[in-house]
């Protein structure tokens, strides 16, 4: 089998040059979806019968939470690929995914807390899902800390990849926590199998926001990874030519 494409995937320069034309499209699409979804969700979906207008936080909270989980998976897989195939580009992707995921996890927790105040009467409760999401945030921060703790890039890569992989067990726990334990946080609304327990007039803007967040996440991950590539490869001829050509 021809593995050439796979090995070419490991070339930071190939990655950088390949992704350059994608960037404007991803950005415009991501911001476009977010704008449409937010305006729709804020102004045009009906009020909730029980929660009033505070439920509109869902259009931020749910997409951010989805991305924080998906981003963790991606980060762990990138770490594994980097460890197994010793692909430095994969390590760069992993490193870039950590701060983006951390911000999205924090955003999910904070918007959840703000939503909880008028809905449940409390900013915080040590409920299974919320606690496991907090642990996820600590895992992200731990990976960021490990990346900065070592002078030797190789050791930093390995340590943070191992932490990312060990922490993967948290993901199914977060996901199933609302089914396994009696929790304050409600069970899943959007289901892949069976009908969803949310009205279509509220579901459509939510789906648009989810798509928008995924698209913008992709742009962000590529943007951060490209910056990482330039930094780590700064001694190469192609990076120097690229950055110095303007001067």
């Amino acid at each position: 089998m021809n593995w050439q494409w796979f090995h070419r995937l490991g070339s930071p320069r190939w990655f950088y040059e390949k992704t350059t034309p994608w960037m404007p499209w991803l950005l415009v699409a991501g911001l476009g979806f977010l704008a449409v979804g937010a305006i729709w969700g804020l102004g045009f979906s009906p009020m909730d019968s029980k929660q009033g207008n505070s439920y509109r936080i869902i259009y931020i909270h749910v997409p951010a939470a989805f991305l924080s989980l998906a981003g963790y998976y991606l980060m762990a897989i990138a770490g594994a690929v980097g460890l197994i195939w010793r692909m430095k580009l994969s390590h760069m992707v992993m490193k870039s995914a950590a701060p983006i995921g951390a911000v999205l996890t924090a955003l999910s927790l904070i918007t959840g807390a703000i939503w909880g105040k008028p809905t449940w009467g409390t900013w915080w409760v040590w409920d299974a899902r919320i606690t496991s999401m907090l642990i996820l945030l600590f895992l992200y921060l731990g990976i960021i800390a490990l990346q900065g703790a070592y002078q030797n890039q190789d050791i930093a890569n390995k340590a943070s990849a191992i932490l990312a992989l060990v922490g993967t067990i948290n993901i199914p726990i977060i996901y199933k926590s609302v089914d396994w334990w009696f929790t304050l946080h409600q069970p899943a609304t959007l289901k892949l199998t069976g009908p969803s327990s949310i009205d279509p007039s509220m579901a459509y803007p939510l789906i648009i926001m989810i798509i928008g967040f995924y698209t913008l996440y992709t742009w962000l991950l590529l943007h951060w990874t490209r910056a990482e590539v330039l930094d780590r490869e700064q001694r190469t001829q192609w990076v120097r030519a690229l950055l110095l050509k303007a001067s």
Partner: protein
Amino acid sequence: MNFQFESLSTFIDMGGHGAYVWSCYLLTVVALLLLMLYPRARKRQLTLQLQRQQRIEQGQPVAPPPSVN
């Protein structure tokens, strides 16, 4: 599909939940902006560093680097 609020002021008020809703959306905008701008700043810093190195290699006078405290 209609606009769900009678006026701009009721839209901002969000039935009494305005502070909760808008603080979330504002926080999101700020967070996303920071995430979007950081790599650009990093690239600019790298470019300046490489320009400095190039000037050193070419034997041109170079100002001391900005100190980071």
